């Protein structure tokens, strides 16, 4: 019966070991960023529309900036 806590611990450890693999997260390697680097993936690809949106957010919501999303883009250099 003393082995029971050990088995529980082992079960817990095995579950923890499995968790990172089932999250669906995947590291994008530097040479796999072709799609992320595409022009259409840029949030600020149209400067005029960007300026208008910024103006609306600032005047209606007193909010500005903070739109940067980590992990996008070419990731070069």
């Amino acid at each position: 019966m003393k082995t029971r806590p050990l088995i529980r611990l082992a079960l817990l450890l095995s579950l923890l070991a499995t968790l990172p693999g089932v999250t669906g997260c995947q590291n994008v390697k530097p040479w796999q960023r072709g799609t992320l680097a595409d022009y259409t993936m840029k949030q600020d690809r149209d400067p005029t529309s960007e300026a208008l949106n910024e103006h609306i957010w600032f005047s209606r919501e007193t909010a500005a900036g903070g739109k940067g999303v980590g992990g996008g883009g070419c990731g070069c250099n």
Partner: protein
Amino acid sequence: MQSNKLICLVGLALGLALVPGAQAALKTGDAFPALADFHLTGPVPADLAGKVVIVDFWASWCGPCGESFPAMDELQKKFGAQGLVIIAVNEDENKSDMDDFLKTHTVSFTVVRDAKQSLVEVAGIGTMPGSFVLGRDGKVAFAHNGYHGSETKKQYEQEILSLLK
């Protein structure tokens, strides 16, 4: 009890199998793998023995890669006769992207394509562009992450000169 142990083992094995492995990048002093082993397409140089080689990984979508090309071309022309070989390894998913890029970036150095991205996987570069400067012994003498204009070009020159001696 047996089934519990089995669950533990299966869980651990699954977990370890699914966790992304640590990237083993080439380091200074490592022997660069033989290019012939990677099914590269294009004019892969047959004999690099005794040459100073720069292996540069690039892609058409990578801005700094394009910036580095004129400098690389200059280096190839300047030191080629002394034994410098520059090999630019393309990592684009589509060959047409590479071809379009090369139409506007005419270069004198060798360009090959790593369609399966297997060489770059082994090299394990940290960013694009990434390059390795190999000494005459075929070992990595210097490694570069990214291209930072004239600063990187100057570094290349100094490294090439030190290896060509």
